[in-house]
């Protein structure tokens, strides 16, 4: 699922080279941490959170099929972490 989230986000943002998806596998849950450039945050979240919700819906459906829970976490302060 990491590849899918990555390709969706890279296509949406202005700075695709700064899209980083980290996958953390737990026993039953996989957390996908998404980091993008600060100015691209709005693009991956979308109007009224629609884009983020659509990605989460896809993750939830994939989770049902694969009997796993996928969580998407959008991490905000990428720039601050860098500096």
């Amino acid at each position, binding site marked *: 699922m990491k590849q899918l989230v990555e390709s969706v986000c890279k296509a949406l943002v202005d700075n695709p080279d700064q899209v980083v998806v980290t996958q953390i596998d737990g026993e039953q849950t996989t957390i996908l941490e998404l980091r993008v450039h600060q100015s691209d945050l709005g693009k991956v979240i979308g109007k009224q959170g629609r884009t983020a919700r*659509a990605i989460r*819906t896809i993750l939830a459906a994939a989770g049902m099929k694969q009997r796993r829970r996928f969580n998407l976490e959008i991490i905000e302060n990428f720039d601050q972490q860098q500096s």
Partner: protein
Amino acid sequence: MSDKKEFVANSLKDAIQKAAEDFGIEEDKLKYRIITEKTKYFGHKQREIFIEAWSSDGSEQKGLEDFVKLLIDEMKMDLQFELESKSEFLRVNFSGEDYKLMLYQNGNLLNAAQYLLNRLFADEIGKKIYCECENYRKKKEAELSTQAHRFARQVRRNGKAIQLPELNPFERRIIHMTINKYLDLESKSDGDNFLKVITIRKKLNG
């Protein structure tokens, strides 16, 4: 995909012609997006239309196909898809074993996939993308229309307004179109969100 260029003309037809001449291609191979439309002197003088155009070699559709393949593979779903290109829209038709999952919770996944595909590819392809699965939208349309007729009869009979549950724009459109056929009734959407509630009531002067 080739480079995009901007063109301006007095009408859309002229702008498209201009762009096609500039690229040296037939008009049907040209993709465009209207940037803005301006009228001078309150529309009394002339209109100016700005378009962004590019020549299409079909590579946009390839991008969409690859993405849908990736989506199905990553989700490990047993689904196939077909693309059907019409003049106004592009339809992605899903079928296969896992169609129930696609339509789970009122077509939630189908809507999510449609939304993402539109965000990613609609501008490049130059038309809207519709996702369909096992005739879900067609059936839903018929079902909503029947429902709207039933509500309309109910409002007519006892004169009380009825409020429908939250609906998405596609569903609301069908309800409004059905209610519009009743001259003495009106329908109104309320809310600021993507999902809104519709109220059906008798017209005040009706």
